[in-house]
């Protein structure tokens, strides 16, 4: 799919959360199709972005990748080994290599533990650096590395600001030098002036440690800044998958086009020039997604008889983007709506 060695290969990944009902014994009457058959590679050393609106399945995908959730079907091969249905014992040694950073730096840290012991947790769990002195030294190194004062080793999480708490989360995630980091909305809860600090930190760490990052966010500007390749998700499916330049330069899927058109640009002149394309309606329920192309109910280009009967495959379109669409956007359509369109 992309150049370089894939670290993770995801094929036909599905996660359905059953909805149960019944008189005496409950039986399954439906499912929330959170992730409904997605395939992609994560190339070693890259940052892969997953974007989409709430309910598109991006966070579920993150939790499947790190096996915090068990998939319904499909494969996730991590360095060639399928971890999709591995038992928790088998997974344990592999967990060192994949770590997660969460959105809310407030609730993801145990309030009664010192920062030192929070960051040291991975060492304890995986029996690395058993000597307490050695462990403390390594924790303080990590704190230094993420821009925390190592002398604050014994402080509690509430003594830190939001940005600093997210740094603690980052330090914990990189402690065991993992190969893959899955960051789920890592800056959404932070103030604008603090966001940049964390984004820069993640970029520096990736360069220094050679990390592979899956970066999940709803903010398209942040994703553009952080990611090499981006998958746009809609209702549990990948609508478009392309490199950042391709995706923002010439989005092919009408949904990507609408997303980019909707992002407010902090430049009044550009804002005036652009025709803001406003999608009608709301995202349909993932319990009962539209037939065939998931987007056809809201798509300005949908053609009856095609889009509502024929499910489009993710396939190469003009410019190299992979898009699941029968009628991809043309260059003139793109130029009118998308502020980042390549001239």
């Amino acid at each position, binding site marked *: 799919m992309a150049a370089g060695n894939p670290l993770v290969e995801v094929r036909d990944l599905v996660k359905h959360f059953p909805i149960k009902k019944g*008189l005496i014994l409950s039986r399954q009457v439906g499912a929330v199709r959170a992730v409904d058959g997605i395939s992609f590679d994560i190339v070693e050393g890259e940052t892969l972005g997953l974007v989409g609106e709430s309910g598109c399945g991006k966070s579920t995908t993150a939790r499947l990748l790190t096996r915090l959730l068990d998939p319904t079907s499909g494969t996730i091969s991590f360095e060639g080994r399928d971890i999709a249905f591995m038992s928790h014992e088998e997974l344990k040694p592999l967990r060192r290599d994949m770590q997660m950073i969460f959105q809310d730096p407030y609730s993801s840290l145990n309030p009664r533990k010192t920062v030192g012991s929070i960051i040291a947790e991975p060492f304890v769990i995986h029996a690395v650096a058993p000597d307490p002195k050695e462990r403390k030294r390594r924790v303080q190194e990590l704190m230094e590395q993420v821009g925390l004062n190592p002398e604050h080793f014994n402080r509690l999480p509430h003594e830190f600001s939001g940005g600093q708490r997210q740094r603690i989360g980052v330090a914990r995630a990189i402690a065991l030098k993992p190969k893959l980091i899955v960051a789920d909305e890592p800056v959404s809860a932070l103030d604008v002036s603090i966001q940049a600090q964390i984004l820069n930190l993640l970029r520096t760490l990736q360069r220094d440690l050679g990390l592979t990052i899956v970066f999940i966010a709803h903010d398209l500007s942040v994703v553009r800044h952080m990611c090499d390749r981006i998958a746009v998700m809609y209702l549990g499916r990948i609508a478009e998958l392309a490199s950042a330049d391709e995706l923002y330069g010439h989005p092919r899927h009408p949904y990507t086009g609408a997303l980019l058109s909707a992002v407010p640009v902090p430049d009044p002149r550009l804002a005036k020039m652009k025709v803001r394309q406003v999608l009608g309606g709301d995202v349909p329920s993932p319990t009962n997604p539209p037939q065939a192309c998931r987007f056809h109910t809201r798509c300005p280009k949908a053609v009856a008889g095609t889009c509502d009967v024929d499910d489009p495959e993710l396939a190469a379109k003009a410019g190299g983007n992979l898009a699941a669409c029968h009628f991809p956007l043309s260059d003139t359509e793109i130029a009118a709506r998308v502020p980042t369109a390549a001239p």
Partner: protein
Amino acid sequence: MGTYIFRRLIWTALLLFFVSALTFLIFNVLPTADPAKLRAGRNQTPETVAAIREQLNLDDPFLVRFFSYLGDLLFRFDFGTSVLNDEPVRPLIFEALPNTLMLVLGAAFVWFASGVVIGTISAVRRGTIIDRVAMTTALVAISAPVYWLGLVALYLFSSDLGVLGLFPAAGTYDAADGIFTNISSLFLPWLVLAAAFAAIYARLLRSNLLEVMSEDYIRTARAKGLKERRVIFRHGLRSAITPIITVLGLDIGILMGGAILTESVFGIPGIGRLSFDAINRNDIDIVQGTTLFLALGVCLMSLLVDVLYAFLDPRVRF
């Protein structure tokens, strides 16, 4: 909704089956006094005892006796017969039931109304002297045992030996007098039974209301230009009171049997008193009957409460 109620009814039936099995097991298998001997009276001979045993089918195997009891219960709503004085249990329960209902429902009204009023005032006037006095009094009321409160109430208020002599004394309650004559006799028991509950409800409502009043939709209500009183009663209390109504249902269910102490102190011939006396006399059939009857009451009340909750809070769906 219909399926939900149906499912709950089936679960209720299952639960009652287990309750009846358990009570039957406890009273028939575990060593207690032999009912036949109790029935035979003072001048008993082995022969009379054996005759009674046979008459009452006491020698049948446990399971046979259990299922015949269960059959009577299911098909004729028959709770068996008191072996001791050869009286059917169901009429005894039904005779006592109105008295207990009068006591419990009246008390529930008293504690719910006073709990809500005190809780609301405390929440609205948070931190003031009124709030502190109310909450401290509530703590005392919660901590005081019901029989102690009952005796204190009798000492202070009852017309025969009370210092103030405001209300009719203990033992003046007579079911034959009819409901309205008895209301005055019930004043003291209501107050005593309601005291601790009123205190708990006041504290519960206060904390609920304080939480609700910091919700965003309260801010919206104020931003609409509503009067503060309307904000509190129509928007705040509506949310704060809903969980309390469900607690109320459960508490009433539980109290149907839990009013033993109050009924005893004030001499009210309710279900609690009935089972209390039965326990003293070792009258297993009555104890068993009242236990089952109360279990049924609690189960139905909790079903009622859950259904009610769906009406009170539109977000709840089954």
